[in-house]
């Protein structure tokens, strides 16, 4: 961790394993998506990842690709995204997940700083750019440090030990542990490689949150039992939004289903977890 001060995001892991849901902002509309994010907060989210949709999402599987299409068709833009964040009534740290070209193009001057400034002003606490490896991240890292935002990197199953050290040096907030190879998407199995990744991160100052493929409270519990400090769930929640959209359900009904799913996942990790403060 580069900053001396513990960030709001890292602090969110203190009282037990954290539940970190992901939704694509504006999916399928600005207004309904606000309801959905607030439902996740009521359901026990400790941190929320909000996707700002990019036209070429190379790290996403079909579920989130479709969410991105719905959101873009609904008129989502970077500026609307910041208005979205400002309109949210939630009391947890927010992480913006988007691709580097949108970060780079924002504002009049070259480079990532205008985006980071606007994100900080809107109330974003951290960023994840899934197509930005550590090697290319220095300008964004510098801007995030200057504005007090965390920059979260992904540790993949293929990440070598040689890459792990610089990656952790650049990370702040939490470390996103990719549970298995591939793109995002809900799966029923949880890879053996998850525990290997967690073992490698044992002893690092930052909390390790595991994502990719978690869809049930039971799986969430297993991953926490394997040593994760948090779980990240995206596609399983986006599936609920997609079902609501396809079946023309009322916004309140989809919001209730999201809240119920959030409670299931939260319950799964509370059963297994103990506060991080007691384990360190």
């Amino acid at each position, binding site marked *: 961790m580069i900053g001396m001060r513990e960030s709001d995001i890292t602090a969110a892991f203190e009282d037990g394993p954290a539940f970190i849901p992901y939704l694509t902002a504006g999916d399928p509309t600005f207004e309904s998506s606000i309801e959905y994010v607030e439902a996740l907060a009521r359901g026990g989210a400790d941190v929320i990842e909000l996707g700002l949709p990019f036209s070429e999402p190379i790290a996403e599987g079909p579920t989130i690709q479709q969410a991105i299409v719905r959101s*873009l068709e609904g008129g989502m833009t*970077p500026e609307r995204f910041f208005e979205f964040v400002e309109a949210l009534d939630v009391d947890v740290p927010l992480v913006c997940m988007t691709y580097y070209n949108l970060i*780079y193009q924002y504002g009049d001057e070259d480079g990532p700083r205008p985006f980071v400034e606007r994100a900080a002003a809107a109330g974003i606490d951290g960023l994840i750019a899934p197509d930005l*490896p*550590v090697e290319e991240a220095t300008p964004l890292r510098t801007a995030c440090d200057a504005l007090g935002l965390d920059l979260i*990197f992904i540790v993949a199953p*293929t990440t070598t030990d040689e890459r792990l050290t610089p990656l952790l040096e650049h990370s702040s907030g939490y470390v996103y542990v990719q549970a298995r190879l*591939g793109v995002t998407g809900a799966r029923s199995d949880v890879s053996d490689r998850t525990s290997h990744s967690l073992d490698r991160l044992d002893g690092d100052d930052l909390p390790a949150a595991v994502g990719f493929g978690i869809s049930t409270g039971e799986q969430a519990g297993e991953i926490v039992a394997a040593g994760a400090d948090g779980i990240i769930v995206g596609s399983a929640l986006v599936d609920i939004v997609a079902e609501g959209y396809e079946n023309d359900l009322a916004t309140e009904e989809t919001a209730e289903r999201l809240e119920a799913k959030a409670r299931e996942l939260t319950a799964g990790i509370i059963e297994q977890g103990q506060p991080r403060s007691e384990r360190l």
Partner: protein
Amino acid sequence: MNETFGRYGGQYVPEALMPALEELTDAYQRYVLDNEDGFMDEFRERLRAFGGRPTPLQHAEKLSERYGTSVYLKREDLVHGGAHKLNNALGQVLLAKYMGKERIIAETGAGQHGTATAMAAAHLDMPCEIYMGRTDTNRQRPNVFRMRLNDAEVTPVDVGRGTLKEAISQALRDWAQSVETTHYVIGSVVGPHPFPQLVDDFQAVISEEIRDQLHEQTGGLPDSVVACAGGGSNAMGTFHHFLDEESVDLYAIEAGGSSLAVDEERGVAPNSASLTTGTEGVLHGARTRVLQDSDGQIMESHSVSAGLDYAGVGPELSHLVETERVTPESVDDETALAGFHRLSQTEGIIPALETAHAVGWLETATPEQLGERVVLTVSGRGDKDLETVLEETATHDVPEAPEMDVFSTTTGDDRNA
């Protein structure tokens, strides 16, 4: 080895792929640059025996007469498979074999890179899966069939407009999942380092042969070298050995589509002229010139030629344009169609629609631009485009096109050209 070309290039990919790029960079250094285990010797021998190299550099008499200069055609349409694409595909599939990979994936737009990869994979006994946008599988049916005949899987991509951009994204997703056993044979000088350099090195055989053949035929260098550019592998291969020859002017001909304007509202650019009209951005693993809206969303491009229909371009080509070593020019659909018919009629060579853009440009070029010796690379043959040309010729005003009454099933007054 350069990871960047000026401010372009780099490696903008998910962390999961970074170790694979490190592995590929290492293999590129050892096998391609250092010829370890005789890799480059085997590559060149296979290009000769299987690929049909060297290809001729042909003096084009009618074109020379028409433009009052000496026009030479580099006949990459005569490479096995009908396009320059095999140079790269064969190199990369062979490299994958040397690296111990068990499976090949590739994307394709026009289908030329897909068919070249499928041929190379069959030749070298590697399982192969090709991603191709749905729009392209529909407009390039013969190539889909050729890939299937070579035992490759063809997976249509339904996302977006279903062209090359979506096919590359989908291939990158497959690779993120299969990276430990699979090599991704990217089809152009695009993508993250080391792909732009690797592909350039495999395609550089084009300009190596041009230089030697022209020297043999004329004792000198060309004044100008002309190549069509989509992603830019034909252009980079054609320019490579002339980059340091300052007297040689290099022209990269892009697809101007139906217009060079962009429609921000709909996110559509009715062209593929990223060198001429694109702006700096990050697409498919590299910083380069891309067609994008003011937010940074990538535009849907358009060209009558599926092989040029791409919103990005190789980072080295972006750099060479920025430093004014390469001059980008754009040619619209109509001029390209005219070029297609002109080369077919005057020289007896039916070119790919990609090549037709370069041929079309000769018509608008000034004598000063062309100089006394012009080399134009015929990047591929046009058999794959016949259906498209039939349809497009009917909807455009192309006086060069032949009458097609022979296809009319009716007789009398109601026949249409």
